[in-house]
């Protein structure tokens, strides 16, 4: 399994009136490059496919 741990961000305050996107949790990579290429990302965590009428997160 191709995987490594990303940098851990230090604990931070979250002031209001700002937008925050969480850091990527893992760096697991698809083992199969074919699958990664067809999917459009090497990180399964970032794979959010179109499933029909509405997107599921």
């Amino acid at each position: 399994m191709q995987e490594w741990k990303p940098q851990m961000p230090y604990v931070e305050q979250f002031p209001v009136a700002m937008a925050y996107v969480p850091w990527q949790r893992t760096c697991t990579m698809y083992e199969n490059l074919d699958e990664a290429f067809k999917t459009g990302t090497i990180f399964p965590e970032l794979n959010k496919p179109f499933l029909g009428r509405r997107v599921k997160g």
Partner: protein
Amino acid sequence: MWNYEKRLQYPVKITQTNPQIAQVIISQYGGPDGELAASMRYLAQRYTMPYNTVAGVLTDIGTEELAHFEMICAIVYQLTRNLTPEEIKESGFDKYYVDHTLALWPQAAGGIPFNACEFQSKGDVITDLTEDMAAEQKARTTYDNILRLVKDPDVCDPIRFLRAREIVHFQRFGEANRKDCSKSKHKNH
């Protein structure tokens, strides 16, 4: 600052022409939420970024978007290849054809030409990165709409790839927006 490789980022092999869907897909070339707008936006914003890493994100994603509008153009080009006058008239493609023949010209599906009003470059890190996150979501929604309208698997395959890239780009712009991003010197745990 550019070199290129003589290949598309992801293959485009359309076996069946279809001018109807070409008129829809062209929006991801010249439309308000398309790849050209994305590229011009990011490549314009990067100069006034106070952090090198953020300028890096904008330059690297802006460059990838150039490869994406190239893919969109390849799709539209292959969808409209060698059309007969009858096919052009039947599909409503005649309105584009009269001005451009079968050439690629950046416009939205509705006909509005590409223009710089389709993006902003505001000179404030948070404003620009927030604009960029919105841009990636708008592009993703446009691809969702294309996938609702188009069923040809030759077309859906590169479109799904391009859609997935928008989600990754959103994540990267979101990370760039975290103020500690460029200053973090943590080793791996």
